[in-house]
């Protein structure tokens, strides 16, 4: 799936508005994923998943930083994300959805249908790049 110039512009502009909050949103998206889709917790059996967990917060920051990197390298996602661990499963779509919910909750005025579509495509591209490392 190719991101159009308009998609890239929508994603970049939206992401810039998030500022320093990306870490908080990354953590919230993870929490939502674990709560709504409990099977995703099986990949974090080595984590403390209780409320306020520092491990979850640290991973939320990693997720946010990786996405910020991806936003700045949308023309070559495979290269930009190549250093990320191979340990990403096909359940990334749940995290993508929960990230959208988190962003919608915090930035309702900025997530119009067009930006929603662009973000959804972008997150699908990121997930596709990460899961393709399995094969």
């Amino acid at each position, binding site marked *: 799936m190719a991101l159009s110039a308009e998609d890239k512009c929508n994603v970049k502009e939206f992401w810039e508005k998030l500022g320093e909050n990306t870490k908080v949103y990354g953590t919230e998206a993870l929490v939502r994923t674990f709560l709504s889709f409990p099977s995703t917790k099986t990949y974090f059996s080595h984590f403390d998943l209780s409320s306020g967990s520092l491990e979850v917060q640290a991973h939320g920051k990693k997720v946010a930083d990786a996405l910020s990197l991806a936003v700045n390298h949308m023309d070559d996602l495979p290269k930009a994300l190549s250093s990320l661990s191979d340990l990403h499963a096909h359940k990334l779509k749940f995290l993508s959805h929960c990230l959208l919910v988190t962003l919608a909750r915090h930035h*309702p005025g900025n997530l119009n*249908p067009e930006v*929603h579509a662009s973000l959804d495509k972008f997150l699908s591209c990121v997930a596709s790049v990460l899961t393709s490392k399995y094969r």
Partner: protein
Amino acid sequence: MFVIPSRLNAPQCLRKDHGISKASMQKRNRERLLVVYPWTQRFFDSFGNLSSASAILGNPKVKAHGKKVLTSLGDAVKNLDNLKGTFSKLSELHCDKLHVDPENFRLLGNVLIVVLAIHFGKEFTPEIQAAWQKLVAGVATALAHKYH
């Protein structure tokens, strides 16, 4: 799929206690599905102009259909113990007459949840989202139940 009794009220509370107009939610949900997942437009050939996001957003048939969909979801909220029975006829309709791939029910459910997050903001906590995810998954399963 079981809905924990204490969370049975979550979907009902969100719908009843807040001033969000049903009409505006209906329209936003449907139009968002058609914009974010454009292949769903193939099921709406008779709806007229869906050629752009603004055309979709202004289309009265989209609005009317959104009302039908959310009214059905209202029935789901009132019949959480019998989703399959509640959606039996609609399931047959979507399979035999409309030929809709059930995967699209899950897409619509997730778009609805994003719309709820936009409207309810801080109140759409992770716990409430989890309850709604169960509801939309239950509705999607019920709608797919009569497929053959």
